[in-house]
């Protein structure tokens, strides 16, 4: 197991992070709006796009999990309390898990639906149903689960993003720079150090 060089995430981890983050927010927006359009034809098409993008997220998240296991991220950022560090680690682990679990629950929903609508990702790849018995009850259960987990993950992601922005704008440290190329990261000479006061708390 290797740790990414320096104190920033590597290019691949960054590319995966921001691609998945953008797709995830787009996917929530799509899921929310497709449930609320009036035209049933449009709704049908939107749901198929939703499934296609959901499978894309699932595939990327699987790659990311492997990457995460093979190449560990940089050492935890300094200048944080033990609680903050634990919260950050937990949120990141949960987000990584949810980008797998939420689309899997969606896949289970599509698979158990008595409508038996095929999953033909981007009209290119026919994805088989999961080996689950279709029934009205199973479909309702997976719908609830999928929706609940999706919105819970949105809350978690919002907290995670808010924390990252707090580091950047309030604490003015390099946490966001570790993940966002273009910002002065920890490796560059212009890197911003965490405020001394945070260090003091951390060391206390």
């Amino acid at each position, binding site marked *: 197991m290797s740790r990414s060089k320096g104190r920033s995430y590597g290019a691949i981890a960054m590319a995966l992070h921001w691609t998945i983050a953008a797709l995830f927010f787009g996917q929530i927006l799509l899921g929310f709006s497709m449930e609320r359009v009036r035209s049933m034809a449009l709704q049908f098409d939107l749901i198929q796009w939703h499934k296609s993008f959901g499978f894309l997220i699932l595939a990327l998240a699987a790659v990311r999990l492997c990457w995460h296991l093979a190449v560990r991220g940089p050492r935890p950022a300094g200048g944080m309390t033990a609680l903050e560090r634990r919260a950050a680690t937990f949120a990141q682990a949960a987000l990584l898990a949810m980008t797998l679990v939420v689309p899997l629950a969606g896949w289970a929903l599509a698979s158990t639906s008595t409508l*038996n609508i095929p999953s033909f990702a981007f009209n290119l790849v026919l994805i088989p149903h999961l080996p689950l018995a279709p029934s009205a009850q199973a479909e309702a259960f997976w719908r609830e689960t999928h929706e609940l987990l999706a919105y819970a993950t949105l809350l978690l992601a919002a907290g995670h993003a808010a924390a990252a922005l707090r580091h950047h704008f309030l604490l003015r440290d390099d946490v966001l720079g570790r993940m966002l190329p273009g910002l002065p990261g920890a490796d560059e000479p212009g890197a911003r150090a965490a405020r001394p006061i945070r260090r003091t708390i951390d060391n206390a």
Partner: protein
Amino acid sequence: MHDNGFQKAARAGLAVVFLAASPVGFAATAQASADALTEAAGSYHIDKTSSIRFAVDQIGGGGIRGSFGDYKGSFSIDGRDVGKSTVMFTLYPKSVHANEARVEDFLRSDAVFDAEEYPEVTFRSTAVTRTGGSTATIKGVLTARGKSRPTELQATVTERRGGAIAFHVTGSIYRSPYGMGVGTPLYSNLVQFDMTLHGTRN
């Protein structure tokens, strides 16, 4: 006489099979079929005992199977010139049956039939061509969702008894020209109709 007609229709059907294997059968076929359809001459209305089934295949197997419960229609068979026979048919998409209410609602909605705005789907024949002892090709115009397009159906006489006649009618129709292309290519563009029409002589 009535039984005779049915027998002739059945025999005509056999003759068609024979014809496919041997050109010698042709004369016999033409004669038998002329009799069968000539005897069926008259004007008929379509009975409620008919069945109008359709199927739309989906990618990976399976698909949508359904039927229409409400329809009306009439046809007339010209004894002297079968080509002058006519068919008129109306079905009410609101009466669509499928394996699930959600599918029925979808089919009635403006995604497919838009049954509220266009309560009727009609077929009017323009030309009938005999193709065998008990078979004919019916060309006509199918109107759905306000769009009319030429369509072709294949009809086979399956039963004749007195003033009653039954046809098995099949036809494959592309749905996208009618503005019903929703769900392609997951669901086939082709709708396969499979109908059993029972007619009673007026």
